[in-house]
């Protein structure tokens, strides 16, 4: 440890710690240790949550989970079939609402609105909506679609999820279209194609994988949303109506209602549902990220 004295340090200029005073060295080591520790703490929490879901959820998974409807209070057995199907229907309804609007709005921001003040404002507001609390979007849809029509419905739930998905799709679409090099557009225009044709058959085509990723990310974002559904689609312990009127069963609200219920099979189903929903969402996110990295 003679390295700390100035005289030896000047003789060994390449020694890692050179003329660094012990206090500086300690501060540096402490910081590195703390930063590393914090990172591993966060990763530990992720694996803790996943481990908890597997340990508590796997016991509740069986064929019946996917084939039987949610059990009534105090009744035996049951599954999550209606909740799973309802969740899929609501999520895809949300994506169906959000994709055309999101893709077109993103296209406007990237292709038509370059440098315009209005486009800058829209971009700014979209970024705000991206982080807006989902519960407020649930309240909004309640006020415009549930209260006037006097009843919860799957349509309201789908619209609420769609509104949450729109900013995600707008943002990724714009970012991905901006990555498309200008000369591609010019080549299209030189062939006599009007802007709309250049956009739809050159720019969109070149940015396709990125735009699909945006939709997948939006899907992952809305699939686990609970708060907005409480005010819109609510839930249903039976098969919901094919017209999606009245409550539509869905996994997140079912988990919310079953988790702290006094019936053991309800709790078991809540854990199984949590495992199903988390694994699907994490897989979706991983796939979306893989596509982004592959396309770069």
């Amino acid at each position, binding site marked *: 440890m003679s390295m700390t004295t100035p005289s030896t340090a000047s003789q060994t200029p390449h020694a890692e710690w050179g003329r660094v005073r012990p206090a500086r060295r300690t501060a540096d080591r402490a910081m590195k240790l703390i930063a590393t520790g914090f990172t591993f703490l966060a990763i530990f929490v992720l694996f803790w949550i996943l481990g908890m879901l597997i340990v508590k959820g796997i016991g509740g998974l069986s064929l019946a989970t996917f084939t039987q409807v949610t059990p009534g209070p105090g009744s035996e057995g049951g599954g999550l079939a209606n909740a799973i199907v309802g969740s899929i229907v609501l999520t895809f309804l949300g994506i169906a609402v959000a994709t055309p609007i999101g893709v077109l709005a993103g296209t406007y921001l990237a292709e038509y609105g370059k440098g315009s003040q209005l486009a800058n404002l829209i971009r700014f507001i979209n970024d705000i909506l991206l982080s807006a609390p989902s*519960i407020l979007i649930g309240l909004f849809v309640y006020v415009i679609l549930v209260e006037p029509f006097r009843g919860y419905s799957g349509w309201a739930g789908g619209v609420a999820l769609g509104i949450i998905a729109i900013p995600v799709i707008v943002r990724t679409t714009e970012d991905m279209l901006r990555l498309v090099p200008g000369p591609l557009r010019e080549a299209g225009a030189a062939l006599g194609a009007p802007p709309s044709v250049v956009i739809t058959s050159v720019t969109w085509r070149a940015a396709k994988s990125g735009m699909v990723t945006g939709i997948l990310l939006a899907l992952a974002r809305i699939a686990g949303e609970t708060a907005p559904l409480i005010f819109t689609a609510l839930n249903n312990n039976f098969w919901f109506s094919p017209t999606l009127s009245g409550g539509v069963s869905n996994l997140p609200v079912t988990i919310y209602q079953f988790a702290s219920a006094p019936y053991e099979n309800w709790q078991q189903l809540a854990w199984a549902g949590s495992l199903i929903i988390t694994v699907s969402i994490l897989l979706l996110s991983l796939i979306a990220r893989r596509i982004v990295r592959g396309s770069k």
Partner: protein
Amino acid sequence: MTAVTQTMPAAAAPLRKTPKGTFDIVFRNASFLAALFVLVLLAGIMLSMVVGGWPAFREFGFGFITSSVWDTQNDQYGAWPAIVGTLSTALIALVIGVPLSLGIAVYLTQLAPPWFKQPVATAIELLAAVPSIIYGMWGLFVFVPLFAAYVQVPLSNIVEGLPIVGTVLYSRSPSGLGIFTAGIILAFMIIPFIASITRDMLEQIPSVLRESAYGIGATTWEVVRHVLVPQAGVSIIGAVMLGLGRALGETMAVTFVVGNANRLSASILDPGSTIASRIANEFNEALGLQLNALIALGCILFFVTFVVLVIARILVSRVKTY
């Protein structure tokens, strides 16, 4: 790219048969309207909150914000306990979450071996993908019992009878549920957002700056403290504000662990409620003025988060966040 060049003539050909440029005009206007729709959405949310909450604001006036009474029997509503709960859970989340996030960002940009960076970054981002309700389940069934047994009970025994800390940190019934627990869960939920923006900011700093600091003999800590943090300063504050925006409006996780008490307690370890948890809890049973009062709560939440997010976005100005 070859596919693009091949299809171009084919795509352009049919256009000559249609009236010149009809599709072009329709497409342009459709995308313009879709972009305007984003503005309409925000205006609509704002308007619906104000209109829906108006009867409550009219009935109680300014007292709606300052009153602590939430009495469904006599239709008396005040938002104060929920406002304080919202602000204190978010503040606790920042106090815990910000140092953790900055540590993670420093680790990812300065310390991690290259092969390890991607997996760690993905793991941190996956923390953001875990649904809110799962954090609630983890909080209620795993974290809360541990927190009650190993933190609340010993802490209450230590601080009992002491001035100030004996009030703030004392829990009358150490159930594990409460404002502080909600803050801890929120901290882990906002980490991925703050950490990933801060990481992007640190990576954008020209490496010349870092190298010259190392060149004059600075340690890694000194480079971070005196070069990187001042450079990225404003955008780090923006990232923190963005995290704050998330924490303020988070619903399901908080509803599970906050205890949902309607009164205000002096201790941060006691149960309380936030605006979002109150709305989620009472909404489906609410009628008449109570429903208006809940939407009015949503209105307050909207304006608070709106201001926070506007400041955040101005400070961060365009970084990648999905």
